């Protein structure tokens, strides 16, 4: 009878296609939303992920996420260094600065000042260059940080640093090594381009040494944002973090914990995340609606035949099994199509550098949502089947 049920389903092409479409759409949206969300979250802690060598991040006790830095007194560095189990500790400065391009255009950058001695925190560089380029005076490494077209300088030398008014509309090209920028009227020179993980929210990045950062940024009493500590051999990162917290009264988090803090903070506080979630929930509701209505219509239209089957002795249980089999087939095929579509869309998405990361929970959530919707809609549409008196459908009225 299950085969019969599936034939009934496949026999009604229009509704079957509609049903599949609804389910495919839903599973696609849910999976895509989850992957997009995964991508955003991954990007939100890109700064942490860009420092895989760091075991423990030390920060002001009020810091809750990587995006909300509060600076520390310089003494924090030596205090961390003196904690037992710390193999090394280096400073990291994180700040915001507007850089002036040679055509007069301003662009906001996240400035990341790394330890002068070790250059810890500079990501992999393009064209096989190394972080050592930062050792030249006033050298900076630029990075799109998930943006595109934000680091453009005039193509013609004659348009650079014009006297008089800015040349905002002149033709431009991307920054290359040797180009100059002004940060707070201090000249810096592009010494390379890095391949940092894209950020969320996206923003151009500017890596430089800690001392250069101190020089080009507006003077602040406290410049140090994080102390990046590595653990001595056989010391667990989390245990070390606890020990640092106890000894320094600063906040210390293992990289993994800090990523989690950041994600949690983003989910609660970021308006972008909220907007995305709202939009996608609406889209998902549409998908649910389409699927639900289609499933309902399908069962309703077949009510007469279920009545016939019931008259001929099909038990309620058999009828329910049939309807669930129909829902299950649709859910299975629809989820498959949806996930496939999602993989293709994800490829395109990542190709254009949008946040997208299909983590284990994305297809799981997508699949679960689809099964829920299909079964829910089927169950809902089954109600008249359960209530019907077979005769009432047979007298032709």
């Amino acid at each position: 009878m299950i085969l019969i049920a599936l034939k009934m389903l496949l026999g009604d092409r229009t509704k079957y296609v509609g049903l599949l479409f609804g389910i495919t759409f839903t599973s696609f949206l849910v999976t895509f939303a989850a992957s997009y969300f995964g991508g955003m979250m991954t990007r939100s802690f890109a700064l942490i992920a860009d420092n895989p060598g760091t075991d423990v991040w030390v920060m002001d006790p009020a810091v809750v996420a990587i995006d909300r830095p509060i600076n520390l007194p310089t003494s924090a560095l030596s205090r961390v260094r003196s904690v037992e189990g710390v193999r090394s500790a280096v400073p990291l400065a994180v700040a915001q600065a507007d850089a002036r391009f040679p055509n007069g255009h301003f662009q906001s950058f996240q400035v990341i000042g790394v330890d002068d001695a070790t250059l810890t925190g500079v990501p992999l560089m393009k064209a096989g260059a190394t972080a050592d380029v930062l050792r030249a005076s006033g050298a900076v490494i630029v990075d799109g940080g998930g943006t595109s077209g934000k680091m453009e300088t005039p193509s013609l030398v004659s348009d650079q640093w014009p006297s008089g008014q800015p040349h905002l509309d002149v033709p431009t090209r991307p920054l290359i090594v040797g180009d100059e920028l002004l940060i707070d009227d201090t000249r810096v020179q592009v010494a390379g381009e890095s391949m940092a993980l894209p950020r969320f929210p996206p923003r151009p990045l500017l890596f430089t040494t800690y001392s250069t950062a101190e020089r080009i940024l507006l003077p602040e009493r406290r410049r140090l944002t994080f102390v990046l500590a590595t653990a001595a051999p056989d010391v667990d990162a989390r245990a070390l973090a606890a020990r640092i917290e106890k000894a320094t009264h600063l906040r210390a988090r293992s990289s993994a914990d800090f990523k989690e803090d950041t994600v949690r903070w983003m989910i609660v506080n970021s308006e972008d995340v909220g907007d995305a979630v709202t939009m996608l929930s609406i889209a998902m509701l549409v998908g649910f609606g389409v699927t639900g209505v289609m499933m309902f219509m399908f069962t309703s239209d077949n009510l007469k035949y279920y009545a016939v089957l019931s008259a001929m002795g099909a038990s309620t249980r058999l009828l329910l099994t049939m309807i669930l089999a129909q829902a299950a087939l649709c859910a299975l095929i629809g989820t498959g199509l949806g996930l496939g579509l999602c993989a293709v869309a994800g490829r395109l998405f990542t190709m254009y550098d949008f946040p997208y990361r299909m983590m284990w929970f994305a297809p799981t959530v997508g699949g679960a949502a689809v099964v829920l919707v299909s079964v829910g809609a089927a169950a809902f549409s089954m109600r008249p089947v359960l209530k019907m008196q077979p005769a009432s459908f047979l007298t032709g009225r």
Partner: protein
Amino acid sequence: METHAEPATGPTAISCHGVTKTYGVGNAAVQALRGVDLAVRTGELLMLVGPSGCGKTTLISVLAGLLHRDAGECTVLAHDYEKMDGPETTRFRKENIGFVFQSFDLIPALTAAENAAIPLLIGGAKRRPALDKTRTILKTVGFDERMMNSLPADLSGGQQQRVAIARSLVHNPKLIVCDEPTSALDSQSGRMVMELMREFARGQDRVLVVVTHDDRILEFADRIAWMEDGRIAKVENGPVRAKVPATQS
């Protein structure tokens, strides 16, 4: 009015007294059955005739356990539906009753053979043997292989009706109720179908109740019950038996 018919052949299979049924309530209430008395014996083919709206479909729905009666007594194959719960009634129908509905109600997505095999499949039979058995029966109503594998939409009204009839017989039920089984058939196929049913009714402990408007098939009846306005007006012996009225009104 005395409407009890003379015993026909075997022991009583259906026995009803004062069965009533009202659809709806208040002003919209329609009294479809107003006290039906009827007795049918095993081995008998009873035809139910009467004007449109007199309650024929309603009566056979009650007999088949598809519809609850409001009042009166009714035993069918020694069972009283009012004393059985829903699942019991459903199981009883599955094992004992075959249907031909007024509109044939074939499932559009299934082939003729699959449609006719449904009672066997509901009964838990395996697909292959069920279809094989169904094919034999469809052959006796004049179907060839190609027609058996056609969808209802590709069959004529008469062919669809024959599928519905095959479906009512395929699982060897004890009671078959038919609502206008020959309405869409020409006289030749109508006769063929009725001969098949006649044959079936001759089997041990079988009962057929056939609603019809079709004078041409009255000759196949053991007895004919005339219905009028929710009651059995009279019952007489059909041409199959001696043309002697079973009862005087």
